[in-house]
């Protein structure tokens, strides 16, 4: 029994300690930011805050939540995430169900699959996409942020690979009971595919919540900007001021910026722990195949 030998025990202790430190290192920057946001602005600007708030205050959060622009952006992002995730989940799972059938059952399957996969390999790129949105009159609307990315071929493949692992007997039983494809999908496939659906929901939610670039190019009005785009403009502006070492004057905003960054990351921090336990099953069954 190797794990009872002394060298292995020593290794094991060192290993556990190192990996713990490494994993804490993944959280540390975010934690530091939280502490900055909870400190009063004088010590924060002086760079005195490290891992404990100095002169604890919620002032930065109060100011952030009094900022109308921040709140409208937050609302746009919430709408976008809920609507975008729900729509994508419906369209992609339904398509993946049909594509998970064998050619024997669904003759056109391979044609459709290649039709989708081609878009994974080749795209028109930034400019033609931009002109399309312009021509469709979607500019400056929520739909410009949701529709272009609605079909994610990678997710469809993940889903269909999972659906194919569902025992055939289940669906045959359903068919014999007189259920059609749609009923079988809703009553049999969806319930047994919870891990992969949870994983994909998380991917979709995170994707929508974090997306900023489409907001930059498609949204003109400040009250329609999603939060990530709003944050991006703040950060870039701050970046510009920091590049000039002489003009570090704008630093008085540091605690507020920290609070905004933290709030914008908060939904992910809240949803992630509940869904992450599905990852290994969800992703792996989709990715590693016999």
């Amino acid at each position: 029994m190797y794990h009872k030998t002394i060298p292995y025990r020593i290794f094991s202790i060192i290993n556990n300690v190192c990996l713990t430190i490494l994993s804490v290192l993944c959280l540390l920057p975010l934690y530091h930011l939280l502490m900055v946001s909870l400190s009063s602005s004088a010590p924060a600007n002086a760079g005195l805050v490290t891992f404990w708030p100095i002169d604890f205050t919620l002032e930065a959060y109060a100011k952030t939540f009094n900022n109308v622009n921040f709140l409208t952006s937050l609302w746009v992002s919430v709408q976008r995430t809920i609507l975008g995730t729900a729509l994508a989940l419906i369209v992609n799972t339904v398509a993946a169900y049909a594509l998970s059938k064998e050619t024997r059952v669904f003759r056109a399957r391979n044609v459709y699959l290649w039709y989708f996969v081609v878009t994974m390999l080749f795209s028109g790129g930034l400019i033609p996409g931009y002109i399309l949105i312009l021509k469709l009159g979607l500019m400056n609307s929520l739909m410009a942020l949701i529709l272009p990315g609605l079909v994610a071929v990678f997710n469809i493949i993940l889903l269909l690979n999972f659906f194919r692992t569902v025992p055939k007997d289940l669906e045959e039983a359903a068919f014999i009971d007189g259920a059609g494809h749609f009923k079988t999908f809703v009553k049999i496939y969806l319930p047994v595919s919870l891990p992969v659906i949870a994983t994909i929901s998380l991917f979709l939610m995170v994707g929508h919540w974090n997306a900023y670039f489409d907001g930059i190019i498609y949204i003109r009005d400040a009250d329609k900007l999603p939060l990530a785009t709003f944050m991006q403009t703040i950060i870039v502006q701050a970046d510009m001021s920091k590049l000039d070492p002489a003009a570090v004057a704008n630093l008085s905003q540091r605690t507020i910026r920290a609070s905004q960054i933290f709030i914008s990351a908060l939904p992910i921090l809240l949803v992630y722990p509940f869904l992450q336990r599905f990852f290994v099953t969800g992703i792996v069954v989709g990715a590693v195949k016999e």
Partner: protein
Amino acid sequence: MEANMEVNSIQQASLESQPGKKRKKGFNQPWILHLMVLPAAIMVFIFSYIPMSGILMAFQDYKPALGFFDSEWVGLKHFRYMWENDYFLQITWNTLFFACSKIVLNLIIPFIFALLLNEVRRMGLKRTIQTLVYLPHFLSWVTLSGILIDILAQTGIVNQFLTSVFGIKPIFFLGDGNWFRFTIIASDVWKEFGFNTIIFLAALSGINPSLYEAAEVDGAGRWKQTIYLTIPALIPIAIVIATLALGNVLNANFDQIFNLYSPLIYQQGDIIDTFVYREGLLSGQFSFATAVNLFKSVISLVLIVVSYRLAYRFAGYRIF
């Protein structure tokens, strides 16, 4: 339980009474399968296939006022300009440099990390470590840039730490070209190494435990088990990841660079995607930017097709 049994008996009954007919009806409804694919197919047509035709713009001098049909055709002018442009060669080199460094490190580090994590025997600790290291993957580059800009500033916590411990002058992480490259690669590895271990952990859990028992009986210690058993078991999946990464050598992560770079370090930090954005949308050179994008897409397409073939040949990998 009771309900289940009831369902079973109903199945049994219908099996006996109607052997072929009902079964066939269930299978022979392809129209509904077509209907199920239809929404996705329409969306893909509008938002992926229609823009593909816009690629023809690369061979025009596209003027928004004239539109697609009346703009002048100029053949390969934009491609020739691209190749004679020293700056374009520079950004292609930057793109390759960033992408290759990230691909190599994002393979090696998760590999080692997965091996070490596999040695953690306390399940609670293992799960906590996993939860923490996956997390940065889900934070956006906007959020992370905000954090990085803050902690890497000359008065930021990292420089304070370096100054007080090593007594060196503050480093201009995001404003100095060479340090910028280092920061980009290091922060990308920091963000993704945890998430990239998932696939290795899955491969590890798939190793038959009786192999370890056999090795133990033969007198192999943990080190020998790792060298002769664990690592060989991970090599195939590592090969798949490495070959599939080949298709990405022209993608150096737009989001990350776009949110961290600045005019000061364009020379060392600019990549093809950021260049297309600035030239195309900001400067309005639609045709030139499309030509650059087309160049990139074609090279990527070839690499992806080659890499999938290699992955299939050497590791039997198929995406569906």
